[in-house]
């Protein structure tokens, strides 16, 4: 039989790394094919090759049995391959219709024939039950709808093979369910889907067959009905991974962080955090759930002192800190893992040591009279590299030589080692591999069990739910719900995240 897509022995080398080493991928017609692997396993590279955005060093690509050379995305579309990118490729200030016909615009007498386009798109939408308001502007519609627009755009270009690059990363649980339904319908109508993800539950739920990649090679090829989650994660990581965490019993102590009626503005000067009150106690992990862009970033920046709050009070261990500098707040016992590692967490052009000493370079015993003691600093950094399993020859290497997971470990080591009373962890596992996730989760739980207060912000609801003792849900800058552990299901929390529901303003404990 002929495969819809057949990639034979693809090899792609980037300076210093072999991104794809002899990778073969066979996708049958009309199936949903899961492509899974950790970050850096080479999933994106192989898909970029298929979509004409990168050229393989060697190997053969066959589309529907015919050997093809794909030079550009434009050509890929001609061959019937479409791609829904993780970051949407849409024009925010154009309408949905205009976005869809961009690239394949029907004309009549040199004018855009919106009428026939509208008719054709409506037919596609009703056939696949993918309804979006065609006249709405992209900036007005939700993330889930934007994704639908991307899918309709691909279908409008008459693609038969659809690559979806981590489509669920930006969705809430209910939106994810809807996407799964859409994928099933596409399959029924004869579409072939390549579904890239690292979420195993989704793969088990929706795919027919699975290809697993690890470090640039294919480590497994199996039918979904024969697969189990532990088996898949072993193939992805190369060993058993235990994401179920042992936790000590919940015994909260004194209040460490108290936030009352806090408001703050975004960098654009718009109100982003509105009258937020909560506290975090010793030996407690408080998780803030919410779709990104609902004020979590500004809340963390206001607490850590990177932006000024406009109203309200912040107390750390009984001291009022809302008008203090970042440094003073840190000296009072605040540690902070920033949400954007590359923007705030590390300086890539500096050495690992320079990055590890950021929060103590000016303190004794590392610095006296403005002069730094390099020997002490370097011993200290080497020790941290060992204790936190940072994979590097020594601490004088540049941070840019590290992988994402190891960079995050550098940030983590720096912030955890100062032994503050409060750890703010914003997206602590974003873009790191499963091994590092396991490690970081264990450490966070260890901090909680040793009596520290942890404020966790994450876009991954799974992470929030498995770690937090209490969960706060943020929507449009406000806290709309509060749950204790296991009080609510993922779906229920998802509804609060979407703003569909809100609890009565309870008195904050």
């Amino acid at each position: 039989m002929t495969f819809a897509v057949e990639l034979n022995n693809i090899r792609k080398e980037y300076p210093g790394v072999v991104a794809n080493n002899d990778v073969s991928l066979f996708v049958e017609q009309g199936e949903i094919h899961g492509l899974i692997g950790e970050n850096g396993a080479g999933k994106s590279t192989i898909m970029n090759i298929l979509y004409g955005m990168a050229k393989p060093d060697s190997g053969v690509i066959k589309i529907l049995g015919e050997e093809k050379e794909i030079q550009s995305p434009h050509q890929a579309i001609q061959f019937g391959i479409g791609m829904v990118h993780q970051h949407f490729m849409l024009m925010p200030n154009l309408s949905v219709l205009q976005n869809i016909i961009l690239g394949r615009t029907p004309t009549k007498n040199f004018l855009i024939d919106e009428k026939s386009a509208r008719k054709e798109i409506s037919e596609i939408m009703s056939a696949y039950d993918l309804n979006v308001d065609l006249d709405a502007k992209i900036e007005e519609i939700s993330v889930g709808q934007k994704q639908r627009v991307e899918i309709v755009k691909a279908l409008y270009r008459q693609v038969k093979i659809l690559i979806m690059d981590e489509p669920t990363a930006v969705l809430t649980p209910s939106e994810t369910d809807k996407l799964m339904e859409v994928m099933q319908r596409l399959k029924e109508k004869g579409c072939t889907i390549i579904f890239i993800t690292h979420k195993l539950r989704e793969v088990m739920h929706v795919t027919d067959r699975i290809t697993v990649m690890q470090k640039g090679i294919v480590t497994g090829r199996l039918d979904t009905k024969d697969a189990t989650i532990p088996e898949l994660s072993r193939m992805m990581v190369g060993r058993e991974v235990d994401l179920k965490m042992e936790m000590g019993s919940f015994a909260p102590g004194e209040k460490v962080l108290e936030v009352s009626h806090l408001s703050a503005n975004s960098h654009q000067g718009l109100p982003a955090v509105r009258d937020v009150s909560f506290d975090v106690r010793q030996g407690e992990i408080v998780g803030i759930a919410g779709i990104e862009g609902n004020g979590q970033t500004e809340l963390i920046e206001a607490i850590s002192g990177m932006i000024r709050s406009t109203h309200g009070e912040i107390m750390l261990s009984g001291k009022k800190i809302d008008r203090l500098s970042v440094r003073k707040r840190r000296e009072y016992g605040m540690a902070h893992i920033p949400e954007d590692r590359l923007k705030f967490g590390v300086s890539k052009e500096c050495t690992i040591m320079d990055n590890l000493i950021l929060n103590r370079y000016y303190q004794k015993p590392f610095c006296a009279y403005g002069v730094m003691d390099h020997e002490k600093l370097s011993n200290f950094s080497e020790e941290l590299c060992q204790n936190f399993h940072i994979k590097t020859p020594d601490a004088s290497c540049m941070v840019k030589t590290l992988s994402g997971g190891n960079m995050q470990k550098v940030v983590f080591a720096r912030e955890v080692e100062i032994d503050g009373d409060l750890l703010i962890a914003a997206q602590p596992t974003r873009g790191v591999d499963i091994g590092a996730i396991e490690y970081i989760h264990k450490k966070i739980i260890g901090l909680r069990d040793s009596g520290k207060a942890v404020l966790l912000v994450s876009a991954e609801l799974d992470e929030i739910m498995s770690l937090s003792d209490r969960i706060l849900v943020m929507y449009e800058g406000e806290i709309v719900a509060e749950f204790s552990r296991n009080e609510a299901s993922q779906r229920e929390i998802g509804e609060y995240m979407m703003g569909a529901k809100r609890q009565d303003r309870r008195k904050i404990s």
Partner: protein
Amino acid sequence: MTNWINAKAIKASSFIVIKQIALILAALLFATIFLKASQFEAWAIVNGIKTSLTTDLAGTIRWATPLILAGLAISITFKAQVFNLGVDGQLYMGAAAATVVALALPNQNGVLSLTLVFVAAMIAGAVFALIPALLKVYFDTNEVVSTLLLNFIALLYMEYLVTGPLRDPDASTNLNASQALPENTWLPRLDYFEPSAANVGIYIAIAMAILISFVYYRTKLGYEIKLVGSNPRMATYGGMMPKRTTIKVMAISGALAGIIGAIEVTAIQHKLLAGFNPGYGFDGIVVSLLANNNPVGVIFSGLFFGSLKNAGINMERFTDVPSAVTEVVMAIIILTISAEILMPKIIKRIKISKKNKAHRQEVSQND
């Protein structure tokens, strides 16, 4: 062994040194070809540099002193990702302050007077550099523009001083200059090189290079400069104040520029002379670039550009090659050095196109 000076670092820096020497040789080769093609004496520039490094070492030292200091003033700002194109203006201010203080001081112990003169010059330079620094910090003014424009203000202010308030009333000619400074405020010249203008300023320059190097690699301030220069957002997140660092760096840069002014006045001219500065500020950029912004490297690249400048003057004196040609040679060297930034990109391009070509051939053979 501490890890900031390990084998890897030594290997990396020796590679850079070799590369820079190769760049200089390439630049000299281009310059020679240029001279030959323009029908001048082909070896004029090479001979000029030879003389500069042997019989006329004194001249080289005289010119290297301000160039090293200017290179340092630039390099420290480059490290913090700030651009000070106002070294010229700051050194004028330093020179003016040095003159005023030297003329005002009663005849006193030489060392104390000299120290006061230098301190005044450093403060004047630093304060003048603070203007663009504060504008940048408080009003987000682009320092490239503001420092550049302030140069004209400083230049015109100095011309006003030497034609007006500070003009020597006994001047017989129409020379625009101040009174001669009292001898006790003259910076001593080097005995060995008498009667040239080579002076102990070179020691000051080298000491400053070592000091700046220490500050950058070994102190708290240096670490802050490094982080603010490489990732200012991370510096803020870590509790530093990048704005304060910017102000400090500009002040240091301005103070170094002020020292140039003081040396020129107290060791070379012995008076404030209109238009004494041949553009050290901009030469400083090249000096710093050739040294890869390394403060110790600046000593050597400063010496090289000093010898080049000296060679140009000697060429004019002893051959029929006009000194403008030296400027051309300088320009050729600047272009060669900036090619260092350009070359990797060009090479990458070539590699990519080669690879694509090979790929296409391979594919067509398969068909």
